[in-house]
């Protein structure tokens, strides 16, 4: 789905309002007891502000719209909807709890939450015969069904017990009379981790979930949301804590104004320093090249890239046989966090990226304190009135070259590793390089073929998002636009290096 749609606009508007409330908080120590204080009262006004009386409703009525907004705001303050114990609790009280949490606690995973009130309870996914059926003489649906699940009596009927959802009947029907009823989140999930509970609402099985965020992107009702850490970041910034932002190369491709403006905007938000994660990507690429050279020399066989955290979760939870193949090299986020901690050991490190799974990786790493996404960065900028076009530029530390900056597009990581391999060996950097571009259900199936040795490579680049991180689940601009920005960035950095 295009990242700019009505659902994302509503989500971003709400994030802006949340950011305004938290940015306006006085920077004093957090209260020992979480209580609803007057400064948070604004939170409870947001649902009404967005859907005032007389406004055209999106759902059945503005009251339902408001109720759902309340749950969105909970998630945007870092609370899981599944954990709600008191329906009558004010948003102001959640805000107070978020603020108390920011003083030392963390938003706990899992980081995706389903808003059951927003869930449409889509009809169960299946094939359905419509009244376009002519009950024709040829009966291709019946004859092509491998399970003999179709009978025709005035109209074709599918026996749900026998149907295996192969879709051959739909393909065979000359009248296009058979349709597929899809449940977008279930269809998007690569590991079958989201399904209906007994009431028809979707539930995530967190034992299977890999935090790729595809369900969140594909739900047309935006009923799956991230538990945001933005409030925690804003509270700590307001309290004057020493904080450093490290931003993913995909973030650089979200804006037109260049690195200096991004550095300036992060400084205006209150970050002491900012680093491009592309600098860490240079280290990742170099170490992966060294590892690859060793593996190729010793005949150990295929190595896969390791920087995509959703891919890593797929391996951990669903394809453990692939684990020895995953490069032991750390991700660009971790190397960049190390650079930041080297310069400012006491600082809180905030990763800014396009990714949901990075939240899981950050929580596991112990190196990165908070993760915010592109939408949340945008909301913080708007709330604080920071405009990239007019902000005073500020330098970004540890600048990268085109190899590191090319990481967020599919093929970019493999390119960088080959480039470093070439530098390492003094040769052309030849290796058999393959890619799995997007871990949808088909991508996971392809990955399995590599795991079983039916497909082979020396270097396998795996990107959970088709197109790479610039097509991540939490972005501001269309991947097409980001790709053209990225090409311009790479051209510039190539030129700078050539000088």
């Amino acid at each position, binding site marked *: 789905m*295009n990242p*700019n749609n009505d659902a*994302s*606009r509503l989500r*971003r*508007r709400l994030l802006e309002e949340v950011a305004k409330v938290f940015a306006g908080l006085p920077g004093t120590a957090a209260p020992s007891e979480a209580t609803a204080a007057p400064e948070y009262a604004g939170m409870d006004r947001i649902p009404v502000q967005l859907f005032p009386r007389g406004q055209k409703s999106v759902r059945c009525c503005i009251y339902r719209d408001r109720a759902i907004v309340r749950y969105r705001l909970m998630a945007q303050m870092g609370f899981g909807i599944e954990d709600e114990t008191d329906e009558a609790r004010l948003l102001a009280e959640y805000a107070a709890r978020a603020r108390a949490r920011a003083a030392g606690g963390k938003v706990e995973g899992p980081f995706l939450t389903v808003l059951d009130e927003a869930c449409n309870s889509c009809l169960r996914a299946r094939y359905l015969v419509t009244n376009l059926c002519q009950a024709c003489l040829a009966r291709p649906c019946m004859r092509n069904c491998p399970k003999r699940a179709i009978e025709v009596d005035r109209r074709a009927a599918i026996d749900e017990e026998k149907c295996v959802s192969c879709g051959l009947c739909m393909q065979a029907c000359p009248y296009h009379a058979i349709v597929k009823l899809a449940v977008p989140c279930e269809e998007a999930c690569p590991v079958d981790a989201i399904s209906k509970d007994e009431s028809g609402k979707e539930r995530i099985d967190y034992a299977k979930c890999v935090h790729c965020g595809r369900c969140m992107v594909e739900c047309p009702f935006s009923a799956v949301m991230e538990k945001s850490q933005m409030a925690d970041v804003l509270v700590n910034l307001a309290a004057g804590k020493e904080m450093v932002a490290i931003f993913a190369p995909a973030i650089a491709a979200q*804006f*037109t104004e260049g690195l200096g403006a991004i550095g300036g*905007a992060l400084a205006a938000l209150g970050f002491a320093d900012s680093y491009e994660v592309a600098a860490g990507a240079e280290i990742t690429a170099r170490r992966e090249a060294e590892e690859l050279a060793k593996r190729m020399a010793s005949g150990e066989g295929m190595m896969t890239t390791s920087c995509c955290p959703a891919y890593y979760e797929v391996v951990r939870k669903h394809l453990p046989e692939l684990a020895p193949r995953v490069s032991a090299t750390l991700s660009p986020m971790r190397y960049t966090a190390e650079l930041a901690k080297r310069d400012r050991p006491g600082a809180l490190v905030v990763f800014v990226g396009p990714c949901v799974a990075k939240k899981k990786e950050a929580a596991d790493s112990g190196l990165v304190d908070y993760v915010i996404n592109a*939408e949340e960065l*945008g*909301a913080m*900028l*708007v709330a604080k009135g*920071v*405009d*990239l*076009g*007019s902000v005073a530029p500020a330098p970004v530390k540890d600048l990268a070259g085109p190899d590191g900056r090319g990481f967020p597009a599919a093929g970019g990581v493999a390119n960088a590793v080959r480039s470093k391999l070439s530098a390492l060996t003094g040769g052309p950097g030849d290796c058999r390089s393959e890619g799995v571009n997007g871990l949808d259900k088909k991508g996971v199936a392809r990955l399995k073929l590599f795991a079983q040795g039916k497909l082979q490579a020396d270097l396998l680049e795996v990107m959970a998002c088709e197109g790479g991180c610039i097509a991540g689940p939490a972005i*501001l*601009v*269309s991947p097409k*636009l980001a790709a053209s920005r990225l090409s311009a960035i790479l051209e510039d950095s190539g030129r700078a290096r050539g000088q």
Partner: protein
Amino acid sequence: MVERIHVTVCCGTACYVLGGSELLSLVEALPPELRARVDIDGAPCLGLCKGPGAGPRPFARVDGGIVPGATLDALVDAVVARAAALDGGLPQ
């Protein structure tokens, strides 16, 4: 002589993050017969979002007219309407 139509898209951050980034690709969304007639550029923050009662972001301008809550569809409609107004005002 066909009068040209000038579209200015606000590229201030506040508009940009609410979907303004899409609007610069307007030319591809225009009806083919209008494409050569329209100039599109991005401008630094136009200031249209400031103050009470400001309409929804993102903003764009089609010649003098302001388009609040701009989407590609809304901009195409505004350009088509502008073209019709200009052409209607010309002698046949």
